[in-house]
């Protein structure tokens, strides 16, 4: 794999795909330096909130799901800290919290912001913040978890879905865990829960939520949890959880599947072993575990390349970044969230607390058509600034008159680089040949030559390989 291809691979996984200009900047810094930059985000440089809010009233109020989803997509598309957004997307899938029950988009985005803040830090801190997160509290009913009448929902999912996985604890552990989180609720919980359940926005729109600890509703009794005894509260329980081998392996495996490969092979297990070791050595630091993963030979190998199906959000954001779309506030963003939903990943609206089923399950006939249509439309538009930039590079590379082979290979290189099967390449060349001679002698987007390049890019967007990360 060339250095350029390796960098493109890293940016598809740790980010959402990089443009050629960005790849060249990263290459100048080197692979490991880029990994460090990703793991230590600076100023995000994304589209500022004031600009978003000025034009999009829905993204200022954040009452509705589509506006909130579009707001996050703006951030993903324009950020210069792609891993910060990508790790937030990872946690959103793992700690899946959805609008359907909350009817409170602001609270969901506050949760995403919490993932940005803590998502690369200590797993222990992250779980504590998650347990105090108002959206999670309402989502899994911890506002109904009282000293005299526990509700096990959050305690169960914390152990099963969020930290250790089934088989690592008992039913009694769940009950004791739930007791430890009694009194962890939201301010005005009864009124807020009623408004959420009735989807009430009256009289003046939503009232956002914040965490409240009610000492008088907290169970201070002695508890037995995962073999330890004490009058544990929620933070104590999390301290015990993160010390477990099961937690280290659960977290490492989920990170591996999200960032490296949908399917874990025996070689992959060795990487996970290293991630587990680093988890304990670093005292549960997520960025340290990711560093081991991104710098592993396995991640850099051909085996890991294209070993994941792009999720719908990755697909939409990556294509928008290449096309240079949505870099400024535009009314077109209104429909962007809906695109992720049509493709099977409605952002901020996971189907259940288990999140989305990933890998090949992203692809069905309906979703595939949506993915192809969206990408083909974006890359097939020669007016898009990113597409213009690609065509300008191609013009320079082939002195204004590329052959069909040169145009196909050049486009594959510039949108990736992407390697396609021989049969796919032959099909693309056949298509390019059918377009006739391509003359790139003007920067007018409506010119015949530039339209033909855009048509070729559009065709590439419909290939199987373009759907893989």
């Amino acid at each position, binding site marked *: 794999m060339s250095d350029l291809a390796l960098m493109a691979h890293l940016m598809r996984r740790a980010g959402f795909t990089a443009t050629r200009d960005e790849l060249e900047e990263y290459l100048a810094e080197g692979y490991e330096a880029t990994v460090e930059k990703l793991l230590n985000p600076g100023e995000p440089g994304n589209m500022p909130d004031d600009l978003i809010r*000025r034009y999009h009233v*829905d993204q*200022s109020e954040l009452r509705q799901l589509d506006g909130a989803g579009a707001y996050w997509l703006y951030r993903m598309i324009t950020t210069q800290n792609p891993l910060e957004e990508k790790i937030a997307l990872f946690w959103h899938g793992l700690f899946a919290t959805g609008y359907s029950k909350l009817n409170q988009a602001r609270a969901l985005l506050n949760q995403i912001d919490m993932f940005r803040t803590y998502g690369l830090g200590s797993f222990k801190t992250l779980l504590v913040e998650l347990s105090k997160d108002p959206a999670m509290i309402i989502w899994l009913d911890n506002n109904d978890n009282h000293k005299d009448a526990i509700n096990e929902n959050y305690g169960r999912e914390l152990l099963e879905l969020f930290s250790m996985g089934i088989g690592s604890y008992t039913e009694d552990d769940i009950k004791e865990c739930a007791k430890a989180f009694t009194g962890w609720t939201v301010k005005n919980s*009864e009124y807020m829960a009623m408004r959420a359940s009735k989807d009430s926005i009256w009289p*003046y*729109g939503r009232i956002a939520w914040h965490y409240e600890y009610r000492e008088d509703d907290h169970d201070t009794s002695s508890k037995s949890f995962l073999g330890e005894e004490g009058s544990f509260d929620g933070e104590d329980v999390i301290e015990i959880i993160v010390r477990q081998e099961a937690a280290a392996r659960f977290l490492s495996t989920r990170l591996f599947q999200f960032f490296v490969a949908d399917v874990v092979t025996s070689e992959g297990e060795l990487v996970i072993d290293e991630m587990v070791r680093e988890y304990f050595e670093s005292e549960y630091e997520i960025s340290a575990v990711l560093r081991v993963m991104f710098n592993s030979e396995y991640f850099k190998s051909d085996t890991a390349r294209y070993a994941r199906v792009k999720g719908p959000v990755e697909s939409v954001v990556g294509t928008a970044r290449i096309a240079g779309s949505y870099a400024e506030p535009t009314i077109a963003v209104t429909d962007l969230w809906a695109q992720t939903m049509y493709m099977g990943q409605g952002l901020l609206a996971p189907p259940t607390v288990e999140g989305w089923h990933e890998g090949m399950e992203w692809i069905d006939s309906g979703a595939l058509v949506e993915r192809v249509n969206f990408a083909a439309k974006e890359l097939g538009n020669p007016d898009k600034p990113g597409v213009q930039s690609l065509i300008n590079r191609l013009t320079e590379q082939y002195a204004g008159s590329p052959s069909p082979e040169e145009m196909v290979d050049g486009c594959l290189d510039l949108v990736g680089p992407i390697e396609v099967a021989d049969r796919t390449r032959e099909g693309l060349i056949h298509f390019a040949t059918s377009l006739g001679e391509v003359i790139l002698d003007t920067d007018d987007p409506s010119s015949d030559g530039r339209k033909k390049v855009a048509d070729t890019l559009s065709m590439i967007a419909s290939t199987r390989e373009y759907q893989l990360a």
Partner: protein
Amino acid sequence: MNLKVPERLRYLKTIGIVNNGFNGRGFANPYDIVVSREGNMFVLNRCDPARRSAIRIGVCNLNEDYLYEFGYGFGDGPGQMVWPVSLAFDSLSRVLVTDEHNNRVTLFTSKGDYVSHWGECGTGQGQFDGPAGIVIDEEDVVFVADQKNHRIQKYSIDGEFIGQWGERGSSEGQFDLPWGITIDRQGKVYVADWRNDRVQVFDKNGEIKMVIGSQGDGEENLNRPSGVSVDSSGDVYVADWGNERIQVFGRNGEFKYTLRGEATLSQWAIDFFASNPDEMEQRKISNLEPELPDHLLTAYHISSQIEPFFWGPVSVHVDSEDKLYVVESNRHRVQVYEPA
């Protein structure tokens, strides 16, 4: 020590309720307001994308009677709008509305009949790139904040170009995405120079007279001011949108005081709770002005959680009796203040 307390406006009432339907009583992301000679409030509803087919101007009065509404829906056809920003009356009480997406000004009768529109996208005379604030003087000269062209343009009511001033920049007389605009009783033009975090004051020919405010959240500061209005004494009311407050300055630009909002239930809200008593009961026993944790202590977060405060105070308007109307886009209401 100077203990003189400035004369302040006094909170009068709140008018509005979120309108989740498509028409009728209530507001949907209101963006501007003007008050007619008869005291009727014309409220411009920008509407979020889900409700955009109901983009309209709703007309009500201070007694909270919802009188009528008008609009021709979402789009670029005659009378239609996409991203309306601001409105103003001419001398015949007709209503002019700017649309920053369609790049034009649309003229309606006061009853809402479409009359005409003018403007197109561009940088030349008679063209706009995102027309925002609009105000009309006593001689029916129209002043428009042409935001992305970073200038103020002057037109006749029929759209005949008269003049312009300004360019992009942060020096005096330059603009960065200007938004709200007003004219005081002495004929001075006040522009909310949005991304320069200040209000600039000009004569009608564009000669700079005064600059009010600078970036920040202190007393003399502004953060993305979106609207401005002036009362009969010359006090200047600025919709300090980014700080979620109204800053009040004296005629010479000196800081006087801040309004943070103190909304109560409008009559329309009271009517809602009358038919939803369970929500009212829970509301009564809740603390709707809680202390917030440190990580939520930004103006935006505070306003999103404390209902009486302004949230998205996008526009201010002072009427002929010096009553102040504050339009809150995110809370779908208008808070009204009156002279003490």
